């Protein structure tokens, strides 16, 4: 598809590539070096002790588990929302459409406080569950809810355009072969959505792992139970221990990066099925 840089007739390679590389270097790579420099200030042993500490590991477990669940739930509801927004006309659609970006605009702390007050055992929603012994706020459920809130836009806004572009003829083809509406969705539409879902879900997951502000108010922060990794980084920082803080951060970063990479690879594979070869 692409032409080689040296002989492309389309102008602007040098300028645009120059700007891209400069910008990425200055805004992303330059600061990112610091994380390595700071971490290199501590010994290898210290690094391992820090990142393999049982409390930290418990934190990773909580963070990854809740982020994963939140991403999965958002993939489900995000797809549903995108579907409803693309396929149906109904009163109030504009409102739903407009609210999708709200979680980005509201400061995370405000979101956290509001959610905590809604879901605490005396809160509007929490009290519905309290009689059954279900504690939403101050537990992993609460963390998950906060994470769902902050990552909604990712899934909806990545799936929406793809859904818009799916050719209805695929659905008709399956329809004439006797497929039910649900089968059509599962076997025909879903595979088309999967790259977008992977991307949206992956972004949501990566963002959720790093989320701090909205979570701490609803998490309860009980060690080994509802302590998330970003909180543990704050603990290190509270002790002015930059090296250990960045150690944990590096592990998190690598993990998120690995997820993104895996998603990109999966997407490339999917792409290959659809577009073929190296094109």
């Amino acid at each position, binding site marked *: 598809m692409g032409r080689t840089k040296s002989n492309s007739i389309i102008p602007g390679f040098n300028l645009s590539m120059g700007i891209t590389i400069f910008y990425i270097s200055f805004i992303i790579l330059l600061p990112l070096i610091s994380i390595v420099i700071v971490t290199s200030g501590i010994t290898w042993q210290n690094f391992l002790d820090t990142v393999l500490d049982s409390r930290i590991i418990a934190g990773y477990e909580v963070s990854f588990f809740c982020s994963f669940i939140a991403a999965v739930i958002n993939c489900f509801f995000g797809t549903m929302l995108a579907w409803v927004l693309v396929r149906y006309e109904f009163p109030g659609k504009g409102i739903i459409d407009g609210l999708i970006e709200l979680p980005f605009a509201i400061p995370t702390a405000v979101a956290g406080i509001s959610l905590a007050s809604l879901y605490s055992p005396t809160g509007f929603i929490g009290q519905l569950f309290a009689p059954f012994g279900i504690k939403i706020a101050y537990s992993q459920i609460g963390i998950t809810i906060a994470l769902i809130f902050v990552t909604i836009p990712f899934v909806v806004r990545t799936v929406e355009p793809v859904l818009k572009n799916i050719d209805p003829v695929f659905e008709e083809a399956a329809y*004439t*072969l006797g*497929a039910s509406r649900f089968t059509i969705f599962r076997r025909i539409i879903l595979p088309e959505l999967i790259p977008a879902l992977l991307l949206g879900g992956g972004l949501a997951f990566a963002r959720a792992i790093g989320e701090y502000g909205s979570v701490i108010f609803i998490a309860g922060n009980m060690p080994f139970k509802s302590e998330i990794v970003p909180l543990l980084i704050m603990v290190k920082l509270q002790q002015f221990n930059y090296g250990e803080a960045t150690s944990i951060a590096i592990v998190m970063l690598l993990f998120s990066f690995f997820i993104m990479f895996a998603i990109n690879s999966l997407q490339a594979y999917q792409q290959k099925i659809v577009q073929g070869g190296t094109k």
Partner: protein
Amino acid sequence: MYIELKNINKNFGAYKASNNVSFALPAGSLSAFLGPSGSGKTTILRIIAGLETPDSGDIFIDGQRVNDIAPAKRGIGFVFQNYALFRYMNVFENIAFGMKIKKVPANKIKKRVEELTELIGLKGLENRYPVQLSGGQKQRVAFARAIAPEPKVLLLDEPFAAIDAKIRKELRQWLKTTIKKLNITSIFVTHDQDEASEVADEILIINKGRVEQSGSPLAVYKKPTTPFVAQFIGENSLINNYDIFKGFYRQEGFSTAVIRPEFISIFKENEEYKNAYTTEPGIVKTVTFRGSYLEVIVDLHDTELKTVWPTDREILHPNEKVGVLIKKMYLVDSANIREVENEALIADNSVII
């Protein structure tokens, strides 16, 4: 009759996409809807399949009225214009899809898919994804997918439109023989008359939502019954002042003449020719090589006429003087058609006799 449509009407807004369409096709027949773009071919096909609901009229398949039967229950296979192969399924899964939906046991599915890949000549490619197939292969997979659940009727919307010229010709033959072998009642849509002629037993000429004429390709070609058909079929020359040609006279109401290439005979100057009296002198304008014959445009009384010339006769050259004989023509007005012979020729022949 196996498929029968009675007084089908379908409007899109004020536009009559199907205008009182009625026809009947026998079991096992292979028919073509032939007509210009936008004439309503796809619409009729989609109505039969149940993808579109007619505003009025009845659809019968095998004697049963199917208007109220769900599309999937009508026993119809549909091959879409761009195949609509499921991109994320490989050849096997595509072909198996309809059977899986019907909960056919896995081993039976496997057997049937094997049978079908054999039939379509794609054995060994079961694991390929659509993108890894050529246009012709995709077309055949779409075909196999449509017939896998053993439908009683097969509908194909422009099955060859998206394929290269060369492969298209091969596929036509393949499709024809395969459908005949399976003995499945089929209709396909095309706006290419060569294609319709070559593949179909019967063609239905569609124009402006109506069926203009139907019959065997040769019959329709040889005996057009409406002005539209006369003009639409064949590589015709359309002439208004047709009475300038020897042996033809203006006839009341008929404003246009349609002349087929084979209605015209050309004679080189050095050839002796039979109907010397009726032959008029013309000049060759262009000679174009068209694969296996030459297309010749001759100028006769300042009117350009299109005819053909075989490759094995001595070649014609532009500006060459030739003898031109018009044997017959169709005269048409807005609603009627009349076939007229060259009167001079009739006279000429009778003289000899």
